[in-house]
């Protein structure tokens, strides 16, 4: 009997020190795929991802760069998706932020190489321009219970700061129980100054991240569209859920519209990952939510998104953990203990 699954591809910030060597450890049999990516990077004089992944030492400065992290994360996600067990039927694919590019390839709307060109180009452009930054702040407590009032208050504070002279601050990603905010330094600093530290680490500034999913990236979007003019988007093989919760159905997808969304709206407008996960749940009701590697951090946002939707009646973290212990709903391929649930 097959297990139905939604595949979820992570975004930036998921290839960290523990992930160094991820490709070599988990996908030694897919080196051809990675070398094809290396060849594309070589065209631009960029380091090979096989070298990067195979390096002895990890440094934040080097690996958190957009032109490095994007390529490594994409390669790991796509390889993980290809490694899924034979009894898993992928009924839909989605991703978070940069993970959208991975999702496009996993769903078949882009070939592996075309997808790599897209992600490498966009990651490089983001790094080259590095316009603004991102900060993460939760609106739920440690129990994950929905707190729409708190969320509204935070967003009202964001709007207030954005109105100040020379301040830019906006919602970047709805990420489960967290809000990723993006803006210029004045906007981000103002938010950090006026909001209390919670859970010992938030507000958390994300190193080497730009103000993704805001209008500040309009010039990057324009450059991306020019650079990727020849990128060939196709009908996905599997339903693909974007950062608005829209489903791009096999056979019913306007490839040009998909490309326009990917290089336009998706770059400059807020990314609603929560909605994407909830749409995956409610429109596909799959047995499993599989978060591909690298890393494990997106799993929390997936679980929180499901709790916020009361999926399977789960209203808080304890309910999720109980369900997870009883019958795993979420599989993070970046975790060794869970990875085994998803591969042969």
């Amino acid at each position, binding site marked *: 009997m097959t297990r139905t699954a939604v595949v979820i591809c992570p975004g930036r910030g998921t290839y960290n020190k523990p992930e160094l060597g991820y490709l070599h450890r988990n996908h030694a049999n897919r080196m051809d795929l990675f070398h094809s990516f290396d060849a594309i990077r070589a065209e631009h004089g960029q380091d090979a991802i096989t070298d990067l992944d195979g390096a002895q030492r990890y440094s934040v400065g080097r690996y958190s760069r957009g032109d490095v992290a994007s390529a490594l994360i994409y390669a790991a996600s796509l390889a993980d998706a290809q490694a899924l067990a034979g009894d898993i039927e992928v009924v839909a694919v989605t991703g978070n932020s940069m993970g959208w590019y991975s999702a496009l390839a996993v769903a078949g709307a882009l070939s592996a190489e075309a997808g790599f060109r897209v992600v490498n180009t966009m990651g490089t452009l983001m790094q080259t321009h590095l316009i603004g930054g991102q900060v993460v702040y939760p609106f739920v407590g440690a129990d994950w219970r929905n707190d729409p009032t708190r969320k509204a208050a935070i967003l009202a504070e964001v709007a207030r700061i954005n109105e100040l002279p020379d301040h830019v601050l906006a919602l970047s990603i709805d990420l489960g129980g967290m809000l990723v905010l993006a803006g210029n330094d004045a906007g981000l600093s103002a938010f950090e100054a006026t909001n209390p530290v919670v859970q010992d680490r938030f507000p958390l500034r994300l190193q080497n991240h730009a103000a993704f999913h805001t209008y500040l990236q309009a010039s990057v979007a324009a450059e991306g569209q020019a650079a990727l003019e020849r990128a060939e988007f196709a009908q996905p093989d599997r339903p693909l859920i974007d950062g608005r919760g829209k489903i791009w159905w096999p056979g*019913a997808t306007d490839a040009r519209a998909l490309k326009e969304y990917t290089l336009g709206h998706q770059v400059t407008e807020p990314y609603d990952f929560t909605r994407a996960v909830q*749409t995956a749940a*409610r429109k596909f009701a799959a047995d499993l939510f599989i978060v591909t590697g690298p890393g494990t951090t997106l799993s929390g946002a997936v679980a929180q998104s499901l709790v916020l939707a009361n999926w399977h009646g789960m209203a808080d973290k304890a309910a999720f953990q109980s369900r997870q212990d009883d019958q795993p709903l979420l599989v993070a391929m970046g975790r060794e203990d869970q990875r085994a649930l998803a591969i042969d």
Partner: protein
Amino acid sequence: MDRAQIVHENFLTRVANRDFPLGPAPQPGLGKVDAVSLFRSQVLSRALDRASRTMQKEGKGFYTIGSSGHEGMAAVAHALRPTDIAFLHYRDAAFQIARSEQVPGQQIAWDMLLSFACSSDDPTSGGRHKVLGSKALTIPPQTSTIASHLPKAVGAAYALGAARRNDPEHRELPKDGIAMCSFGDASANHSTAQGSINTAGWTSVQSTPLPLLFVCEDNGIGISVKTPNGWIQASMQHRPGIKYFQANGLDIFETYAVTKEAADYVRSRRKPAFLHLTTVRLYGHAGADVPTTYLSKSEVEADEANDPLLHSVRLLDQAGALSPEKALKIYTDTCARTDRIAAEAASRPHLTTAREVMASLIPPSRPCKPTNGPDAKARAAAFGGDLRAMDDPQPMSRLINWALTDLMLEYSEIVCMGEDVGRKGGVYGVTQKLQQRFGADRVIDTLLDEQSILGLAIGMGHNGFVPIPEIQFLAYLHNAEDQIRGEAATLPFFSNGQFTNPMVVRIAGLGYQKGFGGHFHNDNSLAVLRDIPGVIIACPSSGADAARMLRESVRLAREEQRVVVFLEPIALYPMRDLHAAQDGGWMTPYPSPDQRIALGEVGVHGDGTDMAIVTYGNGHYLSHQALPDLQAAGLKTRIIDMRWLAPLPADALLSATEGCKHVLIVDECRRTGSQSEGLMTFFCEERARVPIARVVAEDSFIATGPAYAAPLPSKEDIVAAALNLTGGGK
């Protein structure tokens, strides 16, 4: 075997065998990708029909009227914009699904299954009812009475044009939008449908913009009664002012092409069109209906052989858009997916308490821009010489007219409509000069059809206007009452407060016109309005009260989105005197425009404690006439004017009657069904030890001529009843 299962197995077998019903090749216009998308919507609609039946069998679903056979409506949706307001037939799941594909982020299968399960998570009705509907998709939730949504569709279409000329603060619909309404061939015969189609044509031939697409889904049968062959075409193709289009609803390519043409016509010409879509009905009317009990097996099988999904697979194959194998996979995947979602949706919570069910009877308030009241210059220009007369006592009709004028000056979104309200100024002159002051756009002379008047108001309410429709006489309300009871009042309830149609319905009514008009101009029954949940009934008895209550009624509609019935006692319109000729005792000066009487605030006259007379309207006037006789009898009396008949102003009545030894109810409506019944019950429950009696109208119609008031309470009746109740006063 269950016909739904037969249709399902036919599909699987025939697609696998490439055994398709014959039909013309696909027409140009619909692209391959879009065609596949429409097929997906059709398949999901079918899968949902099947799931609804399974859920019902398992006790987890509560609605089985399906859309099978009508899946061509997906192509109609595709030819429209998601912002074109759509009042849908109950067989239009495919329309809603296809429209959801036009708006990113929809979770349509989940939403519809929650609706089948009547879960409180249902984003449309909140678990109150299975409805098609969605705020995000501009589909007001609709449940039948048959064709009752057509008058408001006409109204909404009118409102689209009106908003171009006079943009309301709370406009909901884009200015280049059109309205659409759909219904079955059987419903097309309903007087409500016929009236609406007639109104659309009547409006159109006068070149008033009315961008409305009627879509008649003709499956040839209404439950068990067949529609005569060619009936819809014969009766609809030559309607004046309405262009007729026809398409084969089994063919998504043709349906899309024809609907596109019709929609373009409606949008560009701002005129109504009638799209006649031929369909089949599969599985019978609803889950419990077995079509083979009234149709021959061959007739049933003939429809099943024409399954629109089979036609779609054939057409997609011929168009090179999708192979039958892939189509079959979409079908089986979608059925499996729908079953998985259904299992989850069925586990979601339901409403349990009356409080939860009732939570959306009253819509939420909406913020409105503050105003400083009507501008002095504008008032001077509008009122002219009337301004000088405002300090002098005036009869009620004039004060209502002035209050309307001030309100229309202050709020440009107010629009009046009714028979003779414009050029004539109303049969009693209440709306005199309003059309001169505000134009024919805001004071609309309608045709003679109360359903259309109320439908116009509902439709305009949908687009941010504050309509003040007038029903010329209370007796004329009854043929159109469902527009309030079944439509206007229920909209917040069925939409969980997301859609509203605020309005103030002015109705001239009640008895006591001296010898004029007989029953139909003196009707004295409010029973039809009293029990409608959420509806407010106001009934002033003096000019000053009328002005202040009208302002509150408009506030309730404009800010709190309420449906208010403002009942104006005709006999008091011209009333000047109270006790004797020329005493001017029933006239009042015009209260300044900032004065209102709040909902639930009753009028208390006097402080006597021997007896409280609780009354309203003409009863209030008559009670004042009786007062000298009661005083002469030594009865210290207070008179309480309810003013607000519904909801019952319970707290205010208790407070107003505090310490009174007797309560006399004076109600000019009938012994049966009148407000007096509610008041008797109320006081018995709340003031069990206080003796109570009532003076009411007899259970009779009203006569013309000298006996006009014979069945109605009189001053003498009140005096006699008071003395009887109190033991004769002193």
